[in-house]
């Protein structure tokens, strides 16, 4: 800010030689005009690989697909990532053994064409796709699969950290040598490349969600030779995400290869012409980083990008009205009001029930969530195994809420309400609006709210998950793969600071259900657990918001996936000339 808008002008008394501005002005405007003319007429001196045009009826095919991402990826190595932006890009470069049917959570062949599971659930054998090569020419075979599993298993030091190997830790629970005291025995018991070209992976205990977890982008197959050469294992004590491999040299089998990364601006991918499957329809895919949701929408409207993710609920109608395509991702997430039972008053079940009755979920959905969102009755969305149709519900009833509060002796309950700012998640598009909706409902039954707003990054998660000083809070979860353990196992598998309660019965039930091997047994086990949870009411599940993507009219072939398994080789862009 200027100190003062109007500093005094000193009075010079002698004439000083200075460049006449008039001449400079004329010069400037002439050169701008020259530039404009030159660009319009002259041929550029570089080879035009960017926008080759081939005409077809109705419009011309464009060779580039520009997608609006919300932030730079953490790195280009998905093994050390947990954020959607890194995965969005890694899904184009890397592939896993197992994939999903487009638009669903159903398993489908990936780099493995078929698989068998042993009776005891302790080993899985994968038959691999033939003739696949990594982008650096090395072959993808059973040995490569083993190399990948062994790479993860042998990670040491910083690379084992929760902020790095997050998914490996959450699925496999431990490494060969655990450097972090929080880790236990690994689920992984070794793997072998069989003589017939198949690969067998062995586990120490059965894990019902193993196959589904192999669809995670963190387990994409990488060329371990390149990883090692590029310092991608963190063996030198440095952060593997800053290694040459993870910043400029990722090597995978996918339909795109990494080309260039201009931090803060965009990341460029080029078609992999040696891809074993359907080659990409566009020659170049670019992810443009635009952090503000409104700015992304404006960029789409202006033609600067061809599509973007996480459309704000308010923008859906605007875009549809202007002939843009809006695709809904099938909801695979849950938004909840977390309750910290360590906070005074919230440890009482009656109080939690009162809160449940005070909330009008339909009103919250109508006021703050996208169209098509369904209110939630339990902590898993309705398309996950173990969803219980007949679970105990708590209807919107402010009078009952007040009665329960009075019965609990908490008619004047005063609680903290933590919510994040500066963020938009698929399950929580506009936290401030959602906070407002819920807090006014709580105030209406006499609960006094003290708002605590924190920036998502770095403080919010640290407060609501890292400590005990919070009351009720807004949070949620997008499922990574189709397994209820990925939801309620994550939330309630052990005592945490977030929920503040200790219920060994529930923890044991969840641990046991994790190891069940047949789908029927899994279903009934988890249905029971969901009922158990909704009776104990550690929190209030609110809804499963429907996130959407928006595309320009000329984009085709993009199928939204509930687990964001979206590979762009099927995407074609055409522009009306």
């Amino acid at each position, binding site marked *: 800010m200027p100190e003062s808008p109007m500093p005094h002008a000193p009075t010079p008394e002698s004439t000083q030689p200075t460049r006449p501005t008039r001449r400079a002005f004329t010069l400037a405007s002439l050169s701008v005009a020259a530039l404009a003319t030159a660009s319009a007429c002259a041929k550029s001196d570089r080879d035009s690989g960017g926008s080759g045009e081939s005409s077809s009826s109705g419009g011309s095919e464009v060779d580039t697909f520009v997608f609006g991402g919300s932030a730079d990826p953490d790195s280009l190595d998905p093994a050390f990532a947990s954020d959607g932006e890194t995965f969005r890009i890694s899904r184009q470069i890397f592939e896993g053994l197992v994939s999903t049917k487009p638009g669903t959570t159903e398993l489908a062949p990936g780099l493995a064409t078929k698989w068998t599971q042993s009776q005891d659930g302790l080993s899985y054998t994968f038959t691999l796709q033939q003739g696949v090569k990594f982008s650096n020419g090395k072959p993808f075979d059973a040995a490569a699969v083993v190399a990948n599993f062994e790479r993860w298993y042998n990670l040491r030091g910083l690379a084992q950290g929760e902020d790095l190997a997050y998914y490996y830790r959450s699925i496999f629970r431990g490494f060969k040598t655990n450097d972090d005291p929080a880790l236990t025995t690994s689920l992984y018991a070794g793997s072998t490349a069989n003589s017939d070209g198949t690969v067998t992976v062995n586990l120490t205990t059965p894990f019902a969600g193993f196959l589904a977890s192999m669809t995670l982008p963190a387990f994409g197959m990488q060329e371990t030779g390149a990883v090692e050469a590029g310092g991608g294992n963190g063996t030198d004590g440095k952060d593997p995400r800053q290694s040459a491999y993870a910043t400029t040299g990722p090597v995978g089998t996918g339909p795109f290869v990494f080309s260039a990364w201009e931090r803060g601006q965009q990341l460029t991918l080029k078609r992999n012409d040696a891809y074993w499957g359907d080659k990409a329809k566009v020659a170049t895919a670019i992810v443009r980083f635009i952090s503000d949701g*409104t700015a992304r929408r404006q960029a789409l409207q202006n033609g600067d990008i061809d599509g973007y993710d996480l459309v704000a609920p308010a923008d859906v109608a605007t875009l549809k009205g202007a002939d843009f395509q809006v695709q809904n991702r099938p909801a695979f997430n849950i938004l909840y009001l977390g309750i910290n039972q360590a906070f005074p008053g919230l440890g009482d079940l009656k109080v939690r029930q009162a809160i449940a009755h005070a909330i009008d979920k339909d009103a919250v959905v109508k006021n703050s969530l996208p169209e098509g969102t369904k209110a939630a009755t339990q902590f898993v969305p309705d398309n996950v195994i173990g969803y219980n149709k007949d679970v105990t519900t708590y209807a919107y009833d402010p009078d009952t809420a007040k009665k329960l509060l009075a019965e609990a002796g908490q008619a004047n309950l005063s609680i903290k309400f933590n919510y994040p700012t500066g963020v938009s998640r698929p399950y929580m598009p506009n936290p401030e609006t959602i906070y407002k909706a819920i807090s006014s409902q709580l105030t209406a039954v006499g609960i006094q709210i003290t708002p605590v707003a924190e920036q998502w990054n770095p403080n919010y998660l640290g407060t609501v998950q890292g400590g005990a000083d919070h009351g009720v809070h807004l949070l949620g979860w997008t499922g990574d793969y189709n397994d209820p353990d990925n939801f309620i196992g994550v939330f309630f598998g052990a005592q945490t600071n977030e929920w503040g309660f200790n219920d060994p019965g529930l923890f044991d039930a969840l641990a046991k259900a994790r190891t069940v091997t047949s789908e029927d047994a899994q279903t009934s086990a988890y249905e029971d657990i969901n009922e158990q949870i909704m009776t104990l009411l550690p929190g209030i599940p609110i809804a499963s918001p429907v996130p959407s993507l928006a595309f320009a009219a000329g984009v085709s072939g993009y199928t939204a996936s509930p687990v964001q398994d979206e590979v762009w080789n099927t995407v074609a862009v055409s522009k009306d000339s």
Partner: protein
Amino acid sequence: MSALDAVGTTAEPDAEPTGEAGLGPWAAAWRRLRRNPSGIVGAVIVLLFVLVAVLAPVLAPYRPATGQWFGEVTPTSVPGPSAEHVLGLDSFGSDLLTQLLYGARSSLVIGVVSTAVGLAVGAVLGILAGGLGGWVDTVIMRIVDVLLSIPSLLLAVSVAALLGRNAVSIMLAISAAQVPIFARLLRASLLAQRGQDYVVALRSLGLRRRRIVVGHMLPNALGPVLVQATLVLATAVIEVAALSFLGLGAADPAVAEWGRMLVTAQGRLEQAPQLAVYPGLAIAVTALGFTLLGEALREALDPRSDR
């Protein structure tokens, strides 16, 4: 002669060449001020602003930031003007007119407090430096130089980052940037006066240094300080908006504060532009008022403006 024309000029053809001879400096300044149309406009705006801020509880139809009509707001629409709500609602379901009126209050409080704190601390530093001289002066001025070398927004940000997201930290953050300005101002004024005849005369009479400074030099410095304070108030209102934009404002997003309202309104610019226009206009007009007034004060207090 139009009102705007008078601002920024140094020659007033209508000024009487000798008519001010009998008046003291303050009365003469007041006279000049009265004659300055843009100064009057500025003063009126400032007066209106202060009145609205003070009388907000009386003027406003409802309580602020209640969000009680949140049910009428959807992600795609915000209710506009109606019988119960003269200007409609804001995106959190509070009455927009009430929010605007109470926003004047927060702006006034933040502006006044931060300027007062900046002035107080800066003046102390400046007086010590200018009055005591010597190594005290050098040390203090080096500290001021350090503070000045950091752009004010960054300074405000550093302070706010330290103290968290609340009203007090905002006020301190903004005043931090003003301290060096006032320090320099006071010091310059004291130094300029030190050489003047009357000071020499008073010293030779045996008056203690402190008496001279407090009793005589400070009142003479009051003029420029007043001008600077007024101008700084203008920027304080704008800086609060900028800090809110950076995410350092108060915790409750529905709070009645113009900067915050402006920032939140950006998401709904196409649906409900009035949510941005009103607070934006309010900020601009208030800052304008203080700026006009400050500049008119400067013109009025500057004896050179009689030519």
